[in-house]
C-alpha cells in the first residue's frame, strides 16, 4: 500500500473523528438549544477526539518509516548465502544497494544474476508486507484512540482545557527546535573534531605552521604526508578580515554619521534603502564580482605600477567583503547614534560647537560602546563569510601579510575538504570539523560579547 494512501486514510479518519466528536457532545446534552449545559463548545470536543485519533497513529508512522529500511535490510542479509554474508561491509553495501535498485526499478551496476533478482523479489515482498502491516497498525491505533476519546465526552467534560493544554505543549515543543539546533551543531562538530584531535595533537593544529591536508593513499607514496598546522589559515582569515574591516568600518561609520547628522531628509530617504540593497545581495554574487571583475582590475592596476599581484589576491576578496559589510556596520552604528539622547546633541550645539565637533566630541564617545559592539558582530560576519573567499581567495596556504599574495581561509578549507567524496575515517575529512569547531567557537564568542555590549549600552539611555 502506498504511503500517500495511508496518509489519506488517516486524514479521513481524523475528519470523521472531528465529526463524531462534535455530534456526540451535542447529543449528550440533547441538541443545539441546550448548548449552555456543555462545559466546552462542540468544536473543542471534535478537536479533542481528532488529536487523540491522529497523534498516536502519526507517531507510529514516523517511527516505522525510520526503522523500516534497516529491518528489511537485516532480514535480507540473514537470507543471503554464507559467501555473500562474509563479504566486506563495502561490498555487502553495494550488493544490498543493487538489490534495492533492482526492486524499485532503478539502474543496477553490473549484471543481474539469480541471486540479485531472487533477493529483489524478497525485498519487494518484505516492503509490501511492511506497508500493509503499517496501514493496519496505524488505522487500528487511530480507531482505538478515537473511540476511547469519543467515549470520554460528557456534558461536564473539559475538552477545551485539554485541547489547549495539548496546544501549549506543542508550542513549547516548537520552541525547543532552536535549542535542539544548537545542540545538533555542537555535537555534530564536536564529535568529529575530537576524533581528529585523537590523530593530530591539538598543539600541532593550533600552532603548526604548515598546512597541506593531502594524506597519502598508499604507504610508500612520496610527498603527501599530510600536515595540519592551521596557523596559515588563521593568518589568512585574519588578513582578509582586517582588509574588509579597513574598508567597512570607516566607510560604514561615516555613512551612518552623515545620514544621521548631516544629510537632508530627502537624500537620506533615497540613500538608505539603496545602501540596504547591498546587504540583501547574495554572497555568491559578490564572489562572482570579486573573482571576475575586482581581481583582474587589481591585477592590472598592480602591473601598471610594477607590483606583482597574484590572480587570487587577498586584497580583492577583502575589498569586496568590506563592501558587503558596509551596511552591517552602518545600520548598527546608526542605531547607536540614534540612541544618544537629543539633549546631549542640543547642549553641544547650543554651546557653539560646530556639527562635526558635536559628532566627534559628544556623540561618538557616547555611542562608542554600541559602535564597538556592532563592529564585533561585523567581524564575526567577515570571519564566517564563505562564498566570496571560496571564489576569490585561493587555496594556497601561504603564511604572509602581503595583501597582494594569495591566502586561504578557514571557511575555504572547510569547503575544499568536504566537497566531493568524504571518508569519515581520514584525518583530511575530520580536519574540516576541527576547523568548523574553531569557527563556531570564535564567532559565538564575538557574537556573545558584541550582543552584550550593544544591549547593555542601549539600556543606559533608555
Amino acid at each position, binding site marked *: 500500500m502506498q504511503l500517500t494512501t495511508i496518509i489519506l486514510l488517516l486524514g479521513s479518519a481524523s475528519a470523521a473523528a472531528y465529526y463524531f466528536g462534535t455530534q456526540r457532545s451535542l447529543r449528550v446534552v440533547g441538541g443545539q438549544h441546550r448548548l449552555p449545559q456543555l462545559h466546552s463548545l462542540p468544536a473543542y470536543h471534535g478537536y479533542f477526539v481528532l488529536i487523540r485519533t491522529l497523534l498516536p497513529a502519526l507517531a507510529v508512522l514516523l517511527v516505522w518509516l525510520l526503522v523500516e529500511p534497516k529491518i528489511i535490510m537485516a532480514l535480507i542479509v540473514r537470507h543471503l548465502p554464507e559467501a555473500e554474508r562474509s563479504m566486506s561491509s563495502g561490498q555487502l553495501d553495494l550488493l544490498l544497494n543493487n538489490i534495492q535498485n533492482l526492486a524499485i526499478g532503478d539502474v543496477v551496476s553490473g549484471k543481474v544474476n539469480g541471486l540479485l533478482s531472487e533477493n529483489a523479489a524478497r525485498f519487494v515482498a518484505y516492503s509490501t508486507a511492511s506497508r500493509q502491516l503499517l496501514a493496519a497498525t496505524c488505522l487500528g491505533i487511530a480507531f482505538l484512540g478515537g473511540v476511547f476519546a469519543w467515549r470520554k465526552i460528557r456534558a461536564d467534560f473539559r475538552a477545551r482545557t485539554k485541547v489547549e493544554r495539548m496546544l501549549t505543549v506543542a508550542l513549547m515543543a516548537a520552541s525547543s527546535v532552536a*535549542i535542539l539546533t544548537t545542540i545538533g551543531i555542537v555535537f555534530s562538530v564536536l564529535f568529529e573534531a575530537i576524533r581528529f584531535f585523537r590523530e593530530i595533537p591539538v598543539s600541532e593544529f593550533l600552532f603548526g605552521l604548515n598546512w597541506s591536508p593531502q594524506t597519502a593513499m598508499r604507504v610508500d607514496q612520496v610527498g603527501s604526508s599530510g600536515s595540519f598546522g592551521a596557523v596559515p589559515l588563521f593568518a589568512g582569515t585574519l588578513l582578509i578580515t582586517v582588509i574588509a574591516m579597513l574598508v567597512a568600518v570607516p566607510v560604514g561609520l561615516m*555613512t551612518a554619521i552623515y545620514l544621521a547628522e548631516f544629510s537632508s531628509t530627502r537624500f537620506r530617504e533615497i540613500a538608505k534603502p539603496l545602501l540596504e540593497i547591498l546587504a540583501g545581495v*547574495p554572497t555568491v554574487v559578490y564572489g562572482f564580482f570579486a573573482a571576475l571583475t575586482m581581481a583582474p582590475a587589481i591585477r592590472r592596476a598592480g602591473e601598471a605600477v610594477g607590483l606583482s599581484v597574484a590572480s587570487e589576491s587577498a586584497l580583492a576578496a577583502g575589498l569586496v567583503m568590506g563592501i558587503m559589510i558596509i551596511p552591517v556596520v552602518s545600520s548598527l552604528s546608526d542605531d547607536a547614534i540614534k540612541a544618544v539622547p537629543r539633549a546631549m546633541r542640543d547642549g553641544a550645539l547650543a554651546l557653539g560647537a560646530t556639527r562635526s565637533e558635536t559628532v566627534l566630541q559628544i556623540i561618538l564617545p557616547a555611542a562608542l560602546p554600541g559602535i564597538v559592539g556592532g563592529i564585533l*558582530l561585523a567581524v564575526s560576519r567577515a570571519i564566517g563569510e*564563505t562564498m566570496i573567499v571560496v571564489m576569490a581567495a585561493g587555496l594556497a596556504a601561504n603564511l604572509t601579510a602581503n595583501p597582494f599574495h594569495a591566502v586561504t581561509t578557514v571557511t575555504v578549507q572547510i569547503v575544499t575538504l568536504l566537497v566531493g567524496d568524504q571518508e569519515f575515517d581520514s584525518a583530511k575529512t575530520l580536519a574540516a570539523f576541527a576547523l568548523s569547531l574553531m569557527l563556531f567557537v570564535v564567532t559565538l564568542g564575538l557574537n556573545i560579547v558584541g550582543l552584550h555590549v550593544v544591549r547593555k549600552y542601549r539600556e543606559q539611555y533608555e
Partner: protein
Amino acid sequence: MNVRSKSMTREIVEAGLAKRRRKDRVFRTLGLLSTAVGLVFLITFFATLASQGASAFKQTHIILNIELSRELLAPDGPFDIDYADFDAVVRQALRRELGDVNGRRDRREMNRLLSIGAAYQVKDTIAKNPDLLGSTLKMLLPVSADVDMLLKGNIDRDLEQSQRPLSDRQIEWVDRLIEKDRLVSRFNSALFSNGDSREPELSGIRGALMGSVYMLLITILIAFPVGVATAIYLEEFAPRNFWADLVEVNINNLAAVPSIVFGLLGLAVFINWIGVPRSSSLVGGLVLALITLPVIIIASRAAIKAVPPSIREAATGLGASRMQVVAHHVLPLALPGMLTGAIIGMSRALGESAPLLMIGMVAFIVDVPAGFTDPATALPVQIYLWADSPERAFAERTAAAIIVLLGFLLLMNLAAVIMRRRVERQW
C-alpha cells in the same frame, strides 16, 4: 568677568572660527564621500552585471534547410528514431550551405560550428511528427558556443590562430554564413528550459530554479509554523523562567552562526545520521529551514509585540481563554507582519549557497529534479558552478543567472515592502 576679558574670549573664538568651519566642511565632505562610495559601488556592481549578462539572453542560431532523407536516416530500410544518425543530416545541410568543405580535416572543423544540440532538435521534431520523414525542412538550430561568442564580439579576430578557439577557416565560414543571412540572434529559450550542460549553448537554469523552488517549499513548510509557534510561545505563554531564557539566547546566537556551520549540521545529522538522501532538495530545504528559523522567529515576535495589550485585555474580559485570545485576536492581527518576516527569511534562503556545498548540492546535475528526493542543485550554487567554468560563454551565463536570481529577490522584497506598507497600522 570684566569687559576686557569678555572681548578677549570673543577674539580667541573668532580667530579659530574659520579653521573650525573648514574642519566642519571637510568632515561633512568625508561623510558624503563615504555614502557615495557605497552608492557608486552599487551602481558599478549592477552595471557590470547587466553588461556582462545581457548578451546571454540572446543566442545565435543558424537557419538550415534540413533534408530529412531516408537514405541518411534509415540506410538499412526500417526507420528507428533511436538509431537514426541525425548528426549526419544536420552536417549535410551545413556542408551544402558552405559548399567548399573537402576532406576530413575540413569536415571536422565544420562540425564544430554546430552545437551537438542541433541534431537533438531535429530528432525531437521528427519524434513529434514522423510524417516529416523524407521532406525538407527549414529549421532554426543552435550553433556552438564559440561561434556565438565570435558574433557577440568576445573572440578577438586579430589574435594568432592558435590563440583563439576558432580557426581562420572556421571564421571565414562564419563570415560567409553571416553574409548569406543564415545566422540570426534569437531569444535564448534554452537558458530557461534546460538543465545544466557541459555545452554552454545548451545549458540552462531550469534545473537549478526547480531545485530552489522545491527547497524553498520545504523551508517555508517547516520554518514558518515552527517559527510562529516559537514566537507565540515566547511572547504569550512562556513564564520568565530558565527555559524561556535558554530559547532566547539560542535564537540570538543561531541568527549569527556562520551559515556554513549549518551545512555541517546537515551533513552530520540529516545525511549521516538520519539518512536523508544526499544532494536532494529535501535535505537542502531542512538546512535552509534551520537557517531562516531565527529570522522568522524574530520578525514574528516583533509582530506579536506590536498588537496592543488593550485587545488582549478586551478579549480576556469577555471570557476568552488565553489560547482563544491568541488564536482569535493576536494571531490574525500579527499575521501580516509574520508573513513579511517569512518573505524576508525566504529571500535570505534563496540566496544562500555555502551550506548547500556541504550537503552535496554542487554535483553536476543535468536532469530537472521532479521531486523532493531527486538530486538537485540551487540557483546560487549553479552560479558558483558556472563562475568556476573556464569557457567564456559560461561567464555571460553566470551573469545572466545572477540577473534572474536578483530579479527574484527584488520581487520578494518588493512584496514584503508592499505588504508592510499596507498593513502598517497605528493603534
